[in-house]
């Protein structure tokens, strides 16, 4: 019954045409909680709030069964490239 990582991934793929997407199931298997990283040129020129709204809209029906959705990254391909470059240059501090 629960929403699967694959469902979330394929919905986002079909609606936002991402060049990179990573969906992590953070629910421990029951399908209620996901963390998402998504890169799409459809985010170009849009504020973060609007980008999150696009993700929420793509999952509108499924959101009823998703308990928690964390959009860790919603970047444009350009921003994503910069992020990758800077991550490579500076090691991430241990938290």
């Amino acid at each position, binding site marked *: 019954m629960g929403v699967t990582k694959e469902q979330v991934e394929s919905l986002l793929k079909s609606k936002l045409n991402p060049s990179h997407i990573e969906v992590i199931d*953070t*629910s*421990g298997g029951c399908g*209620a*909680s996901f*963390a998402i990283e998504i890169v799409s040129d459809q985010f170009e020129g849009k504020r*973060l*709030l609007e980008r*999150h*709204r696009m993700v*929420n809209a793509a999952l509108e029906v499924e*959101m009823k069964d998703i*308990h*928690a*959705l*964390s*959009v*860790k990254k919603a970047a444009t391909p350009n921003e994503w490239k910069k992020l990758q470059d800077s991550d490579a240059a500076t090691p991430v501090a241990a938290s």
Partner: protein
Amino acid sequence: MARPFTNVLLKGLSGVPAFCSSRSLTGSFYHNGVKYSTSIPNDPDTHEDFRPTNKLEGSGLSLKDVVEQDVKDNPIMLYMKGVPDFPQCGFSSLAVRVLKQYNFPLSARNILEDPELKTAVKAFSNWPTFPQIFIKGEFIGGSDIILNLHQNGELKEKLKDIVARKEESA
């Protein structure tokens, strides 16, 4: 003022929140860490003038009006699971932790207490999850967005004149 709560906050903040408790706490509206209860005490010694007013019931306001009033009256308005000093969800906890760094007045309502308010807030912002943060009447987003705005400096920018106003009055 924040010191006694530090332990509670840190406890709620460790690790990635995988699920949230739906248990409810008493108390409803928080402002600057002061609780404004919406329940009317049955203490006969309390003159009615001094009893807490109940904003959510009996005021003739619809819940949508309440939300509108909240975000208008409170420079930083947070709808969350739990209360700022005892968040009941890792995401709400994260939002509180970020906002508390700026040391400005923080107002919050606990949506776990009131399913109808929860529905009204979701409809108002057209946003499916909690916490939800409003700054100067503008819907900002949830915990991912507030963290991001904090990290890139936009939050500081948004809060600048609130902080300034606070210093003036101090």
